[in-house]
Structures are given as C-alpha cells and as structure tokens.
C-alpha cells in the first residue's frame, strides 16, 4: 500500500484523536494532603475552587483530601502518597518532602506569597466552661493537679507549635534561660496523660472524651470547639504570649508533572490567597493575610502577643534538631502523666 495512503490514515487517526480531546476536556482530580484540623476548611474551600475553575475553564475539578498529623502526612508523601499539593502545619515537614523525597525544589517556600503561608494561626488554651481550674497563662499548665491535653510532637505539627509556644513563653519569662525553659516544659508535660497523634485527636480527647482540664490547641481548633463542636461547654483562654504559627502550602512538582495537573494545582493554591479564599479561611478561624479580610474578622481572634520561630529558635531546622529529633529534648523530658 503506498506510503501516502498510510500517512493519510495515520494523520486521520491523529486528527480524530485531537478533535475528541478538544471536544471535551477531561475531568481532573487533585489530592490535597493536609494536616489534621483543616478538614472543614478544605471542604468549603474545595467546593468554592471547583465552582470557580468550572466557571473559568469549563472543566470539572475534584479535590480529594487526606488528613492526619503533619509529620505523618509528610512521611506518607515521601513514601509514595501521590499528593498534587501539600498543605501542612509547618515548613519543616514540607522541607522533608523536598529533601528526602526530591518531589519539589528547595526554594518551594518562596514560590507563593508570605512564605507560602496563606493564613496564620497561634496556640491558645481551651478550658471547660467557667474555667474551674482558673487557668490564665502558661505557668498554670505546669502546676500540680492540672491535666493538660496536647498531641505528640513526634507526629503532629500542631503539637510542635504547642511545645515551642510553651518553651518560648518560658524563655521570655526567664530572660532567655534555656535550663529554666526546659524545666518548665518538663513540668508541663508531666501533666499530660495522653498523647494523640494529631491535633484533631487531641480535640477529641478533650472535647468528646472529657479528659483533661485544658487543651493546648490551634486557635482555629479552639474556636471551632466553642462555636460548633462543644457549643456552650468550653471557653478560650488566650495566654499572655504565644507563637505565630504559619502553616505553609506547596505544589508537589514531580507529582503534578506526572499527573499533568500543574496548572490546576497551582491555581488551587493561588486561590487560597484570593479574597474568597481568605474569607473561607477566616470563617474557619484561621487568621487571614489579606488586610481587608483580616480587618473584617479582627474581633473574632483574641489579642495575643506573638513571637516567631525564627526569633526565638533560629528557624525550624534548628528547632527540629534540638527538640524533636530522636534523642532531642522532648525525648528527654516526656513522661506520661497521671
């Protein structure tokens, strides 16, 4: 058969293929691997983004969610969980995905505004209605007879923020004395009877199982508890000082390249910074970055003096190595409470 006919048939088939591809854009699915307490946030955000993307591009987007302790989630992605995007509790966990998994570049944090943290949070206390144990500040958590609920810093990003918030408070109170900070945190963790693997688990322990006098919690978890989970049963106590928590988000380059979802995944993360994205974050008790939205929701958040991890601990790499690595300070001081 002449080569021309063969070429014609081949071209026709490619033409049919091209037409069928353009006639209907395939649906696309993303996987967002996130930390524990963001379930409700991303349920609403995903619906809003899907609607926006459909309006703009005519394509259906389905975002699947995976939630768990931030450290555990990072390990899962390194081990092969095909996350298109990660939205974790701390930059260190995404650094680990970059270094150990090679799945995104080292400069990932500079690719989105505000160090890739579209919203912030802090650490506060959730106490029972009426605050029967009179908890006012960090030092009350270390008193004998107080039962404190906080998750395991080995698996939970929120728990690491909690620990560093307590340590930072003690440093500030004691003029930067690391020894006294260690002693204080050791006394605090002596009052911890149960270590959950993630922040949501700790909330369950405190709110649903009725264990403990105080929950050290993400601000958004605490506000969620008093407004929804346990309405009328709890109060939020803002400590005198706490840590500025900046949970970051990132595109997982190797995965989106394989899945061919780069464009939609990038748009998904950028939409967190949009006005609608910031409104959704604020409604779920995350502190928005956009000034107009932050102003609108200012009264929702307690006034707390905030310090940063860079300021007191020299950054996450140093903090992780000193406190949370195997044999680090947490391993030295933690003993299960009463």
């Amino acid at each position: 058969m002449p080569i021309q006919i063969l070429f014609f048939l081949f071209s026709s088939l490619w033409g049919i293929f091209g037409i069928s591809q353009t006639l209907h854009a395939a649906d696309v699915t993303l996987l967002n691997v996130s930390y524990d307490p963001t379930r409700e946030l991303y349920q609403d955000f995903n619906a809003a983004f899907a609607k926006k993307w459909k309006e703009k591009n005519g394509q259906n987007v389905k975002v699947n969610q995976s939630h768990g302790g931030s450290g555990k989630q990072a390990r899962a992605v390194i081990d092969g969980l095909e996350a298109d995007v990660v939205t974790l509790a701390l930059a260190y966990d995404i650094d680990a995905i970059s270094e150990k998994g090679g799945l995104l570049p080292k400069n990932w944090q500079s690719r989105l505004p505000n160090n890739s943290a579209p919203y912030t949070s802090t650490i506060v206390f959730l106490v029972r209605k009426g605050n029967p144990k009179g908890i006012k500040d960090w030092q009350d958590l270390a008193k004998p007879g107080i039962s404190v609920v906080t998750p395991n810093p080995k698996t939970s990003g929120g728990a690491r923020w909690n620990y560093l918030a307590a340590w930072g408070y003690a440093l500030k109170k004691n003029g930067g004395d690391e020894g006294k900070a260690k002693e204080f945190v050791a006394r605090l963790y002596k009052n911890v009877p149960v270590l959950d693997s993630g922040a949501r688990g700790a909330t369950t322990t405190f709110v649903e199982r009725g264990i403990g006098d105080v929950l050290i919690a993400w601000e958004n978890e605490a506000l969620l508890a008093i407004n929804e989970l346990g309405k009328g049963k709890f109060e939020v106590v803002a400590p005198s000082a706490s840590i500025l928590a900046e949970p970051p988000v990132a595109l997982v380059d190797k995965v989106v390249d394989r899945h061919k979802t780069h464009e939609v995944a990038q748009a998904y993360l950028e939409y967190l910074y949009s006005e609608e994205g910031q409104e959704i974050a604020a409604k779920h008790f995350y502190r928005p970055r956009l000034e107009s939205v932050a102003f609108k929701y200012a009264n929702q958040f307690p006034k707390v003096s905030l310090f940063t991890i860079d300021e007191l601990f020299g950054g996450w790499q140093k903090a992780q190595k000193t406190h949370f690595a195997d044999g680090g300070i947490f391993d030295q001081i933690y003993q299960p409470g009463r």
Partner: protein
Amino acid sequence: MIFFRLGVLAVWVGSVLFAMTQPVFSEEASTSQKTVEEKVDDLDQKLRILERRFELQQEGANEKAKAAPAAGTAGEAFLFTSADGQSQLRFRGVIQADARFLHPGADTFFLNRVRPIMEGVLYHYYAFTFIPDFGQGKTVIQDAYLDIRYYSDANVLFGKTKAPFGLERLQADVDLRFVERALPTDLVPNRDIGVQIHRDAPNGILTYAFGVFNGVPDGGSADADADKNKDLVGRIFLQPFSRVHFEPIQRFGIGIAGSYGVEHGTPAAPNLPSYVTVGQQTFFQYRTGATTAAATVADGAHARISPQAYYYWGPFGLLGEYVRSSQEVQIGTSTERIKNSAWQATASFLLTGEKNSYGSVVPLRPFDPASGRWGAFEVAARYSVLNVDPDAFPTFADPTKSAHEAKAWAGGVNWYLNRSVKFMFDHEQTAFKGGAVGGDREREKAFLGRAQIAF
C-alpha cells in the same frame, strides 16, 4: 429542791456540751464528702484516660496492620502486597482443555494452554510479567518482560510479549469469542522480543505502541534473531467517544497497525510463514527443499499494515480487521514481492444481557442452579477470508499443495459460568480455492470445544 436544781444544771451543762460537739461533727462530715467527690472525679478521669489510651493503642495497631505486608486475593488473582503498598506480586493461571474434531483430519482432546502467570509491580513503577506455557506437550516462555511505568503516557517495555499489531491477536487468549483465532491472525506477528514505548488506556481515548523487535514471520513467534535486521512495529488505536455520555457510541474503537523489516532466510530456515486453518491444518506454505533452487526463502523487505476496529453496545459486539502482508522472496534466481491479505468480521451477542466488550465477560448471574442462576450465554458468528498473492504460484508455492484462497465461516456458543470458568462450542467450515491436484482442497469442517479456567 437542791437535787432538782442540780439535775437541771446537769441537763443544761450536758446540752451545752452536746451542742458544742455538733458543729465539729458536721465539719468533719462535710470535709469527708468533698474528698469523696474529688476522689470520684479523679477515678473518673483515670478511667477515661485509660480508655483513651487503649483507643489510641487500637488505632496504632490498626495502622500497623494496614502497613504490614498483606496477602489476599484480588478478583481471581492471589495477591501479595508489601507494607508500603509500592510492591505487589500476583499469581494467576490459565488452563484450557480443548477438543478438536476435524474432517478431514484427526479428532483429539488436548491441553491447549497451561499457563501459570506471575506478574507484579516493584517500587510502584516497575511492572513485570512471566508466563511459561506447558500446553500441547511443550514448554515455552510465552511472555517475559519488564515494563517501566514512570510516565503513564509513555511506558517502556523490554522483553518478550505480543507484538503490537493484530487486533484479534492482542485480545487476551482467555477472552476470545471463538476457540481459535480467525484467518487474518495467520498474517500478524505473535510473540516477539524487543523494546517498545506504549500507552495503554482500555477505557481511554488513545492506546499506542511503537517498538523495535527481532522480527518474526507471519503468525510466528521467536526467541532470537538470525540476522542483524530488526523490525519496526507500531500501532495506534482510538476510542474517540469513550468520554462522551452517549452509550451507543462510547465503545467504538478504530486503529491502524504497521510493521516493516528486512528478512532473510535459508533453505534450512526460510523465515517464511505457513498459513493454517482453525483446525491447525496447513493450507498454504512456500516451497521447501534442501537447496536454494528448491526452497523459497525470505529475501528482503517485509511490510504489513492492518486497519482494525471494534464496536460494542450493550450485549452486542462487532470486531473487524484487514491485514496485508508483503514479503520479498526468492527461489533460485527468481525473486518476487508476495502480497497476501486477509480480513474478518466477528459478531457476538450476550443472550443474558451482560455488557459485551473486547475484554472479559462477567456474568450478571453466576452459575448456581440451586438459585436458578445459569451464568451467561453468548452466541457468535464470524466470517474470514485469506487471499494469497497469485504471483506466489507456481514458482514460489506449489498450487497442488497450497491453496490461494481460504474462506471460513463459523458459529459458536459460549457459556460463562462465572468470571473464571467458561465453556466454548464452535463449528467452522473453511473452503479453499486451489491446494489440491486438479482442483480445490477439500473443505475443512471443524467442531471445536473448550473448557477453560482462568484466574
């Protein structure tokens, strides 16, 4: 009188003393009650803590259990999965016990295919398959390959597998609608060894494969190459409407395959095909002999092309392909380019309402007579033709022994007991032109049956 006053005084003193003791007694009683309440609260908290720790231990144990290597079954396969889920090993198998009753020819029962199948994936991206075959009294490695699936749109396969060409040849052996494949499959390559880049999308729009192989004669398989020349083989197959939400056109597929190589043969190994009927009786072969003057051998370009298509809608299925194979041949000092062609159309219909497809049939009501379930029944019909180039005769092929045309029609019934077991019953008649002294080769009438288990 004085004793009365002393008595009153004693009563008064006693009352006072008694009254003085009352508050002390009450305070002691209320302090003990508070302690008891606090103790109850403490015990309640301890109990809750113990329960929660147990709950978390259970959650941890469940997660560890999920993470542990697992063994089980997946559909018909026996499956072993690594703890991290990135590696998997599957054991499957096929046994086909066939019956072949021919006229003219012998009647026989035999094991057509006996294949233990080992396949799996290592580290998420590296798939492998190993399929030996012990059927027909032989031991053959049918398939053995490594398939690197890092990019789903461009997998790379190294090893021995079906060459990406014939539509019916590429259909799984266990999913055929007739016991034996039709005449066009005589012209297409079977198993070959090489490297190919491919994309498989059984329910998607585009499937393609392009590869470099040793090269095999029509209908043949080989485990090595006798010369330096290699064959290029490629195939594109589209299901352009697979994502359109209109079922009547969803499962229409159309494609084209082509191959090109240069083959050379010797009288001892001519590198040329023979064509067989469904009864596996040879009706065409090139001249053979001990010398180059007596034997036709491959001597030059070998090109094939095959447009192909299928269509499935509900219980109805239709499959068709055309194959043209041209080969430069030589006998003595005579050379020629021989162009043979074949085509087929196969229709099948599932009487019990299952969805027909290029792949497996899964009965809606698996065989269970006690419950009034009889499995799935299918009827099939096929017509196929193979034409040998008239230029082959008489120089390159003996017209008294080799037919120049074969036309076959077939009817069949398939009974699927469940997704693993099926019975097949076919009748096929093949009529010839030429192939006998003074006329046409005798028509072959074949009754074929198969009992198959595949898992």
